[in-house]
Every structure is written in C-alpha cells, then in structure tokens.
C-alpha cells in the first residue's frame, strides 16, 4: 500500500473511527479525535511492517475498539480504591512470580510456532475473534485459518506431552 493509497483509505474510514470513539465515550474517557488518530497511526505502522492488510477498514475499527477498551481498563484501575478488602485470594507474590515463569515458558513454546500461527493464536485466544472475523481481517480463507490454529494447538499439546 502506498502513502497515497493509505491517505485515501484513512480519509474514508476516519468517520467510522470517530463513531467508535463516541460510542465508548460514556464508559471510557476517550477523545474521539485522539483515538481515531492513534488508530490510524497504528494502522500505518502495520502497513509499513508489511502486515497483510486485506480489509483496512475492519482492521482499523478493531484497533480503535482495542484502544477504547485499553483506556477503559486503565480508568478502572485508577478508580479502584486500595484497601485491604480489595485483595483477592490466591494472588500473592509467589503466584505472581509463577505467572511470570509461565509467561516465559509460553514465550519459549510459542517460539517454535510460525509467525502466522502465533498471529492467529493471538487473534483467537487474546482478542477472542471468531474465525470469520480473522478471515475478514487477514483476507485469508477461513479453512486455512482454522487448520493453522488447529496445527498450532496440537503442536503445543504434543510439546507438553513430550516434556512430561
């Protein structure tokens, strides 16, 4: 995608991004203009990194929603008063340390997957996107995405079994 093509697309989708920001305004302190700008910058960064963007509009809207959700969560964290009643059970320092270890193990295990497998797993597991949404975003066939995710999950499971 060239700079000119990107600018044309950006102009076209900007109103939709502003609408996303306004929709989230009641729950998240989001300035629609700032959010739209940030979403477009992130889209441009993905384009520059040769991310396979097939549907720029769908991708930009997804980015915009993620930004709004991220800001909403930050607001929740700030507003939560710090009292002894707020500490939930089972999340002491040891547990958090173990969680960090698991994160490192996950990083190592995911290192054996292909970039596409990691991307699709991220979209599926972390972003909770359906196969149809991933297909729409990436422009790849749904069957191909399904088989890629399946292969990745089975590969990780086999790795776990052989480590035992």
């Amino acid at each position, binding site marked *: 995608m060239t700079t000119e093509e990107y600018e044309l697309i950006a102009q076209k989708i900007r109103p939709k991004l502003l609408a996303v920001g306004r929709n989230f305004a009641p729950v998240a302190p989001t300035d629609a203009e700032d959010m739209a700008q940030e979403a477009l910058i992130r889209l441009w960064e993905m384009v520059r990194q040769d991310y396979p963007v097939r549907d720029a509009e769908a991708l930009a809207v997804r980015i915009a929603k993620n930004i709004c959700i991220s800001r909403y969560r930050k607001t929740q964290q700030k507003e939560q008063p710090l009292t002894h009643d707020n500490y939930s059970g089972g999340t002491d320092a040891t547990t958090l340390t173990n969680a960090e270890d*698991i994160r490192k*193990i996950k990083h190592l295990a995911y290192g054996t997957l292909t970039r596409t497998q990691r991307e699709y*797993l991220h979209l599926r*597991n972390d972003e909770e996107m359906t196969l149809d949404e991933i297909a729409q975003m990436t422009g790849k066939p749904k069957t191909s995405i*399904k088989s890629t*995710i399946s292969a990745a999950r089975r590969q990780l499971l086999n790795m776990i079994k052989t480590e035992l």
Partner: protein
Amino acid sequence: MINISDKDVRKELVSRYLDAGTTPDEERVLVDHYLNNDNVDSDELPFARLIRMEYADGNKKTYIMNRDKAMDTVSFMAIN
C-alpha cells in the same frame, strides 16, 4: 448451557478445540474449567497444562490460577 462437569462433554469440546472448531463462548467455558478445577483427571492433564500455558498470563481473559496449579505447570515445563 454446557455441562462441563460431564467428561464426555469435555472430551468432545477438547477435540473440537484442538480442531479449532469451538466458538469463543465454548472456549471460555473450557478454559474456565481447566484453570479453576483442582481435580483434573490424569488423562486430561496435558490439555489442562496447555490451557494454563495459553491463558494464564494476564491476557484479555484475565484468568488467574491458584498457586498450586501454577507451580504444577512451571515444574513440568522446566525447559531443558
């Protein structure tokens, strides 16, 4: 309503999960079960560990596992 306490239901879900054929809602139920159930059958343990590795790191699902399960996952996966 998914009866996740039924082992046959779990087996069917696990099979579809590995085929990437489960919906996000079904996966949520499955993940919740394996992260928060202390009594996992031995034949389900590898899958439980897969789920714990995939989801217990503070991502969007924000699952938190208890210390024993975290220790179990860490100790078995001590990478050589």
